[in-house]
């Protein structure tokens, strides 16, 4: 949330007002996945919005208070972006640590879906131009499960718990 203060503009205020209910009561410990891209954060986050829905906000380097200290060629890069839909939050950025980016496979985004239709649709959307891993199948733990590597190199895992008991376990 505080990242939204990177840039004081009407677009940020409108985003906060629009998502006010989703931020309300969020003054509590929370973890969120933060993704780094090699200059393709805008394209990737737009793709995720198309796949998952929700509201998306971009803050470019040029829009922040740090703009004057940054080289001209990176002004258009994404300093911070947030995709927000109900309980789902993903952060994305083009900012990379010194030494460059290394797209790893040791972390994934785990999506707990709330219906069979939802898991089918998010899997089908995200696998476009990416590499399917485990196709959606009935897993021995009583869920529908599948995974994939999307076209930006991000790993996703999908789970839909058919049994309410297991669902409660994950809450």
């Amino acid at each position, binding site marked *: 949330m505080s990242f939204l203060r990177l840039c004081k503009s009407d677009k940020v205020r409108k985003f906060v007002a629009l998502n006010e209910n989703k931020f309300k009561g969020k003054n509590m410990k929370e973890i969120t996945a933060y993704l780094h891209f090699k200059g393709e954060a805008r394209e990737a986050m737009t793709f995720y919005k198309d796949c998952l829905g929700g509201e998306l906000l971009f803050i470019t380097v040029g829009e922040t208070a740090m703009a004057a200290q940054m080289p001209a060629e990176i002004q258009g890069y994404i300093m911070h972006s947030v995709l927000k839909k109900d309980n*789902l939050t993903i952060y994305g950025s083009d900012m990379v640590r010194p030494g460059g980016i290394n797209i790893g496979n*040791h972390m994934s985004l785990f999506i707990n879906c709330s219906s069979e239709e939802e898991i089918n649709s998010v899997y089908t959307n995200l696998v476009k131009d990416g590499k399917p891993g485990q196709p959606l199948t009935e897993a021995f733990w009583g869920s529908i499960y599948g995974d994939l590597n999307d076209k930006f190199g991000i790993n996703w895992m999908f789970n839909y718990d058919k049994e309410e008991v297991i669902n409660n376990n994950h809450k």
Partner: protein
Amino acid sequence: MAKVNPYLNFYGNTEEVFNFYKSVFGGEFSTLMRFKDVPTEMQSPGANLEDIMHIALPINRETVLMGSDWSDFMGKMNPGNNFAISVQTDSEEEAQRIFNKLSDGGNVGMPMAKTFWGAYFGMCHDKYGTSWMIDYSDARVEADAEKKELEKSSL
């Protein structure tokens, strides 16, 4: 609607890593399943039976930190740097405490400090290679302030 959570893989020490995260965030594991708990006909050849197949540590009502042990039958593990976990805390003290614990034995990318965007913020890698961003700002105060500014600007 769907929830999204970070899922972490480690080489045979997931249990140790998650015990470390439990000591940082508190709480209890909601799931701890080993490869030996997998039905025999579903077992992957080459998996170490004592390894963690799935572990889950709830952080709050909505977010869960999850993980499992990597096995070589899954291919080669490549710990990348394109993924971090952002933690929003309840207070500045909690942010500092979590940061100190996570960076102990790891390395500090940016020490906890007030940033130009108003947050108390820092970045570190823990001793197991996971990247963290620790962030405290009073969301409710901010949301109210932003709303008032928005109302003012639309007058």
